[in-house]
């Protein structure tokens, strides 16, 4: 079953490492939305 939420990471450098390993690009979202 597909995930119903976006699997946002909070650690940008961890996301960049994961991107290198997986070959996927990073979608980096800069937000000011209320939590």
């Amino acid at each position, binding site marked *: 079953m*597909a*995930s*119903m*939420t*976006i*699997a*946002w*990471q*909070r*650690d*940008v450098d961890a*996301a*960049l490492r*994961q*991107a*290198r390993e*997986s*070959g*996927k*690009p*990073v*979608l*980096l*979202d*800069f*937000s*000011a*939305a209320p*939590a």
Partner: protein
Amino acid sequence: MIEFINEHFVPAQVHIRDQKAVFERFGASWTPTQIILDPQGEEQHRTEGFLPAEDFLAQLELGLGKMEFHERHFSEAERMFRAVCDGRPDSGGAPEACYWAGVAAYKETDDPKHLGAAGALLTQRYPASEWARKASVWLH
């Protein structure tokens, strides 16, 4: 959209309240801003300001197309650009996607007819866009 993002990207979110240094690192000066970084960490596409879902999806596909284009995967790049140009023709990113679809097809085949076709399409469908003006040179 959620499924598309999880399938095609490693999504990372940065909040201005918690990570101002990351904003500065990537030169993000407004929210929302989305940046697509290729697997090597190089920026390939950026959007600034809110976009409705259809326009946002078009920008994501446009960014994927630019990433493929940068990697010289011109056939795959064209496929992504066409997904926006033909599949989301009313989105704000469509004129740019039609332009780059023509360029990618030209790069793949070395046949300038693809540039002429893109120029004709842009002139006919999006005559007021800057992309039609950019492509106008291909019509002569």
